[in-house]
């Protein structure tokens, strides 16, 4: 078979994917597309169906119904061809603890049917690139969590796959290691790799994903860019804090034309939607100055992906 991935178009197509395990309906008709060379963030609480979707796209599971294409190849009809075009980095650092980093990478190369010397060369290249050269000949059980994840990601890259599937790649990592991994993923994308990334960290999706699909209970509940998802929750607001609640009452009256409202949680705070941008702030402050109402503090409140997540799924993704 010689079907090449399309140069343009979608590198991943999921079309009405359904997966039932007995009575458990892990996926109930999930559809999405990932344009070539972009990153899709697949978000959802635990048990939403993220991993099931990844396992179908990586040919590990067959869908109950529906269709999926990866790099232009049907995952059910030609699983072997799909496997030659993908890299998978899993939730667990799926590397062999008893082998060294170099042995792990050459094993993956050999199992991809690279010649021995080619596999060894590629391993050395990846170890260098992922700053693991010093640890190359140490068993992986001596590696830190961050080093294992880097090796796991390196193992997914042995054959330069055009499509990369990352299932919660940074779960359990410290912030510095997470930042490292984000930088690597970003540089892969800038070189043209298509990435599907599942995560519970909204910051991660915000940072890496061009588009986001939120799934819950096996269904797509929202889709769009991070900015689009946030804008569905309303606009940026300015919170004005006063020293006393009676000042806040008077300020709210004075600013009625700006759509001001008293905070429900703090009676000395007044919130104003920031419709007109920075000039709104100037107008508000001028008006308050005219009324001799002194503002103690000004805060900007921007809706976060966390807010989106909570409003869509009723759970807090990062801490679910």
């Amino acid at each position: 078979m010689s079907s090449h991935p399309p140069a343009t178009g979608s590198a991943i197509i999921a079309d009405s994917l359904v997966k039932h395990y007995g009575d458990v309906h892990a996926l109930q008709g999930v559809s999405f597309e990932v344009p070539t060379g972009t990153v899709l963030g697949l978000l959802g609480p635990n048990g939403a169906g993220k991993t099931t979707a990844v396992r179908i796209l990586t040919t590990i599971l067959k869908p109950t119904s529906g269709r999926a294409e990866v790099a232009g190849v049907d995952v059910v009809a030609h699983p072997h061809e799909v496997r030659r075009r993908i890299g998978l980095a899993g939730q667990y650092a799926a590397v062999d603890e008893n082998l060294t980093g170099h042995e792990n990478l050459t094993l993956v190369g050999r199992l991809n049917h690279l010649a021995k010397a080619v596999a060894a060369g590629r391993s050395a290249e990846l170890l260098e690139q992922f700053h693991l050269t010093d640890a190359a000949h140490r068993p992986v059980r001596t590696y830190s969590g961050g080093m294992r994840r880097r090796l796991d990601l390196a193992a997914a890259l042995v054959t330069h796959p055009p499509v990369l599937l990352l299932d919660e790649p940074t779960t359990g990592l410290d912030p510095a290691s997470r930042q490292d991994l984000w930088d690597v993923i970003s540089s892969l994308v800038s070189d043209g790799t298509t990435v599907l990334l599942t995560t519970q960290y909204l910051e991660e999706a915000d940072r890496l994903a061009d588009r986001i699909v939120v799934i819950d209970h096996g269904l797509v509940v929202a889709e769009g860019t991070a900015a689009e998802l946030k804008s569905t929750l309303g606009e940026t607001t300015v919170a004005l804090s006063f020293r006393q609640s009676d000042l806040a009452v008077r300020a709210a009256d004075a600013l009625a034309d700006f759509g001001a409202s008293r905070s429900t949680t703090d009676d000395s705070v007044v919130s104003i939607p920031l419709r007109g941008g920075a000039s709104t702030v100037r107008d508000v402050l001028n008006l308050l100055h005219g009324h001799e109402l002194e503002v103690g503090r000004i805060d900007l409140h921007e809706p976060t992906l966390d807010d989106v997540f909570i409003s869509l799924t009723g759970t807090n993704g990062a801490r679910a």
Partner: protein
Amino acid sequence: MTATASPGRPTFDPAVGTSDGGLGWAIRDTIAMTGRNLTAMRRVPQVLVFSLVQPVIFVFMFRYVFGGAIQIPGQDYVDYLMPGIFAQTVSFGAINTAVGLAEDKGKGLLERLRSLPMSRAAVLGGRVLADTVRNTVIVVLMVLIGLLVGFRTHTNLLAVIAGIAVLVFFGVALASIFVFIGLSVPNGEAAQAAAFPLLAPLTFASSAFVDPSSMPGWLEWWARRQPLSKTTEAVRALMLGGPTSGPVTASLLWSLGIMAVMAPLAIAKYRKA
């Protein structure tokens, strides 16, 4: 990571591997997986040591503690005992097959392997082959330990080697059961726990340590016919002398029968696991 971490252009090279290499790839993949498992064994020599500790304890117990009270007419008990110990050793060695696979599964390694364009059979084949190498080494070491405690073969070297081959083949048959167990449980500890209830009746309700004629009738019936007894008797015949074709044929048929039933079940389990 710094900007030097540029991974290079993701160029998909259609020359990498062929669509489906068939038997050639299956063999290469099996060799690669066998090598990986043997390397892992070398890195954790404790496993090999512990695989020897248990049979050595049994040798001492039965040779020196219980042995004096067990009479086998016309035979030194140590000669009767050691083939039974060998059969027990390969049986308990099969637990490692289940533990190894369960650990690979629990750690997500099987998931990665299933996403690679490799032979499906190689994961199981590489595990069983590596365990067979380990089993062979351990059986040879146990024969040497037997010689130290007074065990004497009464045939020729070729027959002794044939005896080891029968044992190792029985070990492969048991491995097909333990592949299935390893893929059915969540982790290594569970594999270990699941194995003992299966192996205890196989090793003790047998002719490995005592003459089954001392057992109640129903148990004696089983103890004379079951695969570990047949294998023990085959090894006794090959190493100590006596008619070989009956027990050797019985042992090989048991081993083939177990594989014929369990290998397809194990492979089906791997496809679904």
